[in-house]
């Protein structure tokens, strides 16, 4: 049974349909990336999953408990980090985590558990400091720590790296990766490299609709209708281009411009299942145009994202 089961989720704000019939499931131990441009419905969907707001239609089940029918049991399975960490600035980190511990009715040994959570989130050094005096990075970490209190099997993290500096982003990403060993995670972001680095699977939302749900590898396959080859050839650009285009099996050639002096770069898109590497090599040899580079190229996640969410 899936840890998170979302079926036919719809959310209406007056006449605006923010989430349109979204269904997906997340299995135990998966790290799923929620991808989409601003206003795609990511945060709304997460808020519904965590029980912060209700759906207009559809159902959400967490660990077998329906979020509307058994809210306390379902919510007990979730640790949630909203986009803005819900922190009380006048509390110290210790006071805040103790409050969350009591709020969640946690039964684990208090001192050890809070120490463990602090160590995981990397906030041990600031435990006695007031939250209002912490940097943005530490606040984000305290937000993650509160989500980890009571060791919930499901973590829902809404843009956990937003506003952090590059070093902090790397640290938070490796933390999420580490957490993925013990928790099921849904991670919302619009940073595509984050998804590639951290997630096993990607769910792409656009204008409230689910437009893709697959591994990043499968997404590449589903979006591109053929294979792609990147070449650098020394010779006259126009003639190379015409020659490449004339090869049987090539559907498109894209000029990338002059890579080095007198060397031009091209992306050759071939029809599915056609391998044109030998033909390219033989033709260029015949013309005495040196091939300085030839490698299979993939659409990067940015291209896929743009294709799916246009």
């Amino acid at each position: 049974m899936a840890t998170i089961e979302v079926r036919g989720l719809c959310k209406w704000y007056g006449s605006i349909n923010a989430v349109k019939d979204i269904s997906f499931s997340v299995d135990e131990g998966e790290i799923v990336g929620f991808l989409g441009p601003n206003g795609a419905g990511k945060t709304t969907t997460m808020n519904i999953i965590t029980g912060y707001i209700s759906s207009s239609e559809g159902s959400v089940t967490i660990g077998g408990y329906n979020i509307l029918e058994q809210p306390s049991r379902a919510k007990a399975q979730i640790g949630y980090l909203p986009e803005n960490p819900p922190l009380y600035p006048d509390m110290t980190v210790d006071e805040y985590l103790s409050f969350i511990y009591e709020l969640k009715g946690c039964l684990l040994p208090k001192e050890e558990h809070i120490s463990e959570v602090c160590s995981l989130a990397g906030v041990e050094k600031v435990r006695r400091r007031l939250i209002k005096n912490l940097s943005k990075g530490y606040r984000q970490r305290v937000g993650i720590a509160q989500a980890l209190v009571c060791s919930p099997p499901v973590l829902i993290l809404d843009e956990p790296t937003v506003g952090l500096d590059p070093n902090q982003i790397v640290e938070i990403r490796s933390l999420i990766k580490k957490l993925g060993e013990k928790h099921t995670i849904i991670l919302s972001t619009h940073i595509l490299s984050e998804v590639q680095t951290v997630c096993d699977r990607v769910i792409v939302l656009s204008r409230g609709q689910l437009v893709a749900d697959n591994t990043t590898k499968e997404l590449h396959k589903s979006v591109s209708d053929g294979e792609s080859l990147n070449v650098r050839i020394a010779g006259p650009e126009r003639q190379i281009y015409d020659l490449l285009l004339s090869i049987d099996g090539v559907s498109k050639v894209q000029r990338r411009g002059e890579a080095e002096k007198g060397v031009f770069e091209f992306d050759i898109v071939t029809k599915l299942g056609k391998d044109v590497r030998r033909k390219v090599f033989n033709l260029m040899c015949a013309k005495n145009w040196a091939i300085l580079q030839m490698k299979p190229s993939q659409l990067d996640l940015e291209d896929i994202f743009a294709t799916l969410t246009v």
Partner: protein
Amino acid sequence: MKAIIKKELSGYFRSPVGYVFCGVYIFFSAMYFNAVLSGGSSSDYPEIYYGMLNIILILLPVLTMRLFSEERKNKTDQVLLTSPVSIFSIVMGKFLSAFMVYGGCILFTLLYALVFSYFATPPWALIAGNMVGAAVFGAAFISVGMFISSLTESQIISAICTFAVATIFIILDVIPMITTNPLIVSVVQWVSFVGRYTPFTIGLLDFSSLIFFLSVTATFIFTTISVLERRRWS
């Protein structure tokens, strides 16, 4: 609920709000006590509580303005509403914490009775009646303030609106003096907080007033729950 009460109580005294509330309450109640002592009559003793009514109406918005407005503004309501705690527990926890601060101030007035006992026998029945009256009166008004706080993100708007309601309660008691219309007079007397409080000042445990205040309290607690519930569904 225990976690919320604990958090709210420490929140009051982590900021100046709790100290200001208790300080002002004790200051004015001590002034009234001083006046009672100067008068030299134990029958004047309820004046301490009766005189404090208007002060309470002005002071309680300070206590209630932050209850939900602050949570909404800082978006910390997300941590409460996504935790495995019911909305009823959240609302009751907040209500009880505000009531405890207020109740602590009422209990403090027992010190005056102890001081009074040095000079004369305190009118214990009157004191008990007044303390019960002040408690239910305050509970009702805290629930009104909490309800208003659940409607807005701004603590200032919450305080001003609660203060406006308090002003209406005070003005209501003036209406019977300027009109002879029996219907208006009876309606005003029925809903008047101060009017409902009066029987307690003479040591009467008036059940209709007691039930009135408890009903108002329950109504506004459940209205607050409805507001939070409705927001989730909107």
